[in-house]
């Protein structure tokens, strides 16, 4: 009962003022026949200590690793201590949506700064207060592209897009008979330009490509922008590892009309896939079509600068079924982590971190290729992930790594039959030379054949 503050004496006083003998009398509005006549068949309340033990027990049942070489849309990066300390301030985490701007300037100014940073990274003009995650951000972006393009109903999606993002897109396109998702194939690990050109027609609203894509490869947005724009469609870059923005040119400057994806890498841990941080950035001309919350700068009665939720005419509480989207929350606290992270890093920190990621991944690749069973597959430029074919026994590799508390890369066969026997490896700034060397040593001992 530690969370229920009224004492029995106070409760009595409340009930007397209301004029009822028992709290149950206040349920009069619920017909007797619809009420639950028994107690819930669940354990009774636990003390703080008991609950902590039980939850720790669950957390301890997960396997911990010395190093994880698995990325694939969820990246393990260093989280500066200042982030946890700041975000655990109650004024940040116990606040609600900033509906009353006069006493929510903390949240509102933070989101305005976050918006500025996302626009900077994406090289585009306008963004929103964040979306749920990378996959759902793709959905909002694709639907927005269809609205913007008017009368064009096809969205081309590169096979290099995260396979689970593509699944989420499929789910959300299914109810719309008039809309079409069409896949564009890969060649040498990147979007196949010939296939793209063959599928570009007057009905294509947008083309979505990974940047870098799921296989870690850097798509040449500039080269893709030519044919896409010539066909009157929008080029959308989808970034699942936002730290790449410290290494790669901003998508908006490389030819993309819209950029979306996942920014969990800024100050967050993998946490079994969520909460994550979806983002979406667009050009100024499209700002009134953007879904979700947006914060704008304004003045108060006395002319002082402040911030408010704005462009609400696009939203459901005004436009109901004509709204740009049904989204009415954002990932405020995750966005706050990203904001603090980016401000701590600054341009040099972000660039330096990105360079370290690229260096570690290059070193990992080089060392893995020294193993007789590893061989290169495609050879596109990459950031912190890459694909190698493994000629040995995949299960034995997995087992050998796990026995030494290392989590190996992703067995790609599960998502790409054409990459059966291939592994998607990832390295970040968290991987020391020693960890990489242990991995290589362990793999060297795995029996070559089954």
């Amino acid at each position, binding site marked *: 009962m530690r969370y229920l503050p009224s004492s029995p004496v106070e409760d009595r006083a409340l009930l007397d003022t209301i004029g009822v003998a028992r709290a149950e009398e206040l349920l009069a509005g619920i017909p007797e026949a619809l009420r639950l006549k028994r107690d819930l068949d669940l354990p009774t309340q636990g003390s703080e200590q008991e609950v902590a033990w039980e*939850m720790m027990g669950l957390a301890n049942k997960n396997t911990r690793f010395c190093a994880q070489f698995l990325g694939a849309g969820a990246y393990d990066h260093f989280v500066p201590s200042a982030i946890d300390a700041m975000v655990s301030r109650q004024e940040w985490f116990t606040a609600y949506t900033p509906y*009353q701007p006069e006493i929510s300037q903390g949240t509102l100014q933070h*989101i305005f700064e976050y918006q500025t940073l996302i626009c900077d990274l994406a090289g585009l003009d306008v963004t929103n207060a964040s979306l749920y995650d990378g996959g759902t951000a793709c959905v909002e972006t694709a639907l927005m592209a269809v609205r913007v393009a008017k009368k064009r109903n096809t969205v081309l999606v590169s096979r290099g897009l995260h396979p689970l993002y593509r699944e989420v897109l499929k789910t959300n396109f299914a109810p719309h008979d008039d809309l079409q998702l069409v896949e564009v194939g890969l060649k040498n690990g990147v979007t196949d330009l010939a296939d793209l050109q063959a599928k570009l027609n007057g009905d294509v609203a947008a083309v979505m490509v990974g940047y870098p894509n799921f296989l870690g490869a850097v798509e040449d947005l500039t080269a893709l922008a030519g044919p896409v724009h010539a066909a009157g469609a929008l080029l959308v870059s989808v970034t699942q590892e936002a730290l790449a923005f410290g290494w790669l*040119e901003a998508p908006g400057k490389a030819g993309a009309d819209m950029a979306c994806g996942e920014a969990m890498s800024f100050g967050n841990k993998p946490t*079994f896939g969520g909460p994550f941080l979806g983002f979406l950035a667009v050009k100024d001309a499209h700002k009134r079509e953007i879904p979700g919350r947006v914060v704008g700068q304004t003045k108060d009665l006395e002319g002082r600068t402040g911030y408010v939720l704005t462009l609400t005419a696009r939203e459901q509480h005004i436009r109901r079924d004509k709204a740009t989207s049904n989204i009415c929350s954002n990932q*405020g606290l995750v966005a706050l982590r990203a904001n603090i992270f980016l401000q701590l890093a600054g341009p040099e920190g972000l660039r330096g971190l990105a360079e370290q990621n690229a260096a570690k991944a290059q070193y990992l690749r080089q060392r893995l290729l020294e193993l007789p069973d590893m061989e290169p597959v495609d050879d596109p430029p990459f950031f912190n992930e890459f694909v190698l074919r493994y000629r040995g026994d995949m299960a034995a590799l997995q087992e050998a790594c796990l026995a030494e508390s290392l989590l190996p890369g992703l067995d790609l066969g599960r998502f790409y039959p054409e990459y059966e026997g291939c592994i998607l490896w990832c390295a970040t700034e968290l991987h020391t030379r020693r960890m990489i060397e242990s991995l290589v040593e362990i793999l060297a001992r795995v029996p070559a054949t089954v």
Partner: protein
Amino acid sequence: MFLRQREPLSFDRSVSGKRGMDLPKLDVPEAKDTRPAHLRRSGFDALPELSEVEVIRHFTRLSKWNYGVDDGIYPLGSCTMKHNPRLNEKVAGLPGFTDSHPMAPDALVQGNLEMIYTLQEWLKEITGLPGVTLQPSAGAAGELTGVMLIRAYHVSKGAKRRVILIPDSGHGTNPATAAMAGYEVVELPSLPDGTIAFDDVTDPVNGKVRKGLRTLVSELGTEIAGAMITNPNTVGVFEYRFKEVSDLLHSVGALVYMDGANMNALVGVARPGDFGVDVMHLNLHKTMSTPHGGGGPGAGPVCCGENLMPFLPVPVVVRDTVKVGEGEVPRHSYRWDWKRPQSIGKVHTFYGNFGILVRALTYCLSHGSDGLKEATLRAIVNANYIRARLKGAYALHIDSPSLHEVVFSDTLQAKHDVHTLDIAKRLIDHGYHPPTIYFPLIVPGALMIEPTESEDKGELDAFCDTMLAIAKEAETDAEALHQAPTLAPLRRMDETTAARKPVLRWAKG
């Protein structure tokens, strides 16, 4: 007033050469530049250069301009801001949870899978519905998932159906969700008591007739895929004819979606599965005290009946029981089931806002079956206490019994040219976060108050005394109310200019 100093945008404080983060020494060769020249990062326009102490001070100062639940009562009706226990935060931060990778093999994340399974069991018992997915990332995402389940159900029966019925009192997200799921929305009128109208309703002002539920069901029949009904509804009243509504819709093969945003009024007291609901969502940040963080993340699990279970999003967590010797406690293992041919597919990249789900289970375990019911009853008592104390001073537009929240209108104050917004802003001067204002739309000048179970008598009394003082002030000094807030860091914001000439990011001046 030191703490009320203006905090500039961090971009304006940036000084070249400062850094708040340092990197480990690079112990491998430097990266070779493999990028095509035109894809090399050319630079940044806004990323500030600041030291760690400056960043910490910046966010600390900004935080002081926010009102949080720990500052006091946060009576946003329908948004439900209850106490956020610290244990939830501590548990969600356990490295066993935060370090776990969503693509890791099932055998390595047994704790996570068991956590998910266990929370699902709690939600099944609480809602009386046998199917659950925890993957939708927010209430609105839950709505969309739920309506897609309805669609998949009809498609599996060989019919698409085109209409979703939604009461005019419903949450704004409901119609937007139905549209996103490919449906046409037909509005159901409400009665003066806020509940769904079965019979046609004639508008007393313009004489227009709006078709009630019975007429719509008989005219649209099998075109109706389902109805989305908020219960308790947005005026805090239980839809007392819910079972009849369900039966009528079921009679034409339509399904019933319950918007469970207000489920915190029913936990332990009534179960949607027992009164005809086919599918519903819950907002865990409301019902289960997970913090809202200034806008999110939330979590919007969906619970459904057996008829909709085949269509649940993939993957679904499955528990296998390992056989052990006689008399021993059975052991369980957990895995994701991805092979579900009738599934609507994926609704989130991975498995939803897992960290929020951890907090929700922690809340459930802390309360237990007994505490959950107690919390519901006390939330209802608190709302009714406020209702009893403010009735008379503020107009009760709808007099039906209130559950967890109570809606007043500003009609008494409007006579003195004082309106809902003035009352809300004056509350700020007294140190309170205002209630939800101007919602639901069916109540003129609505003030929707939801204290939750987290407030003791002292806090409730202080809030009520303030509301009563403001009502008095409306009679004697309306001008003071028009000026409010005068004590907040900022005063009324120019929202019109913000929308007309949007400034949505900082730019180098």
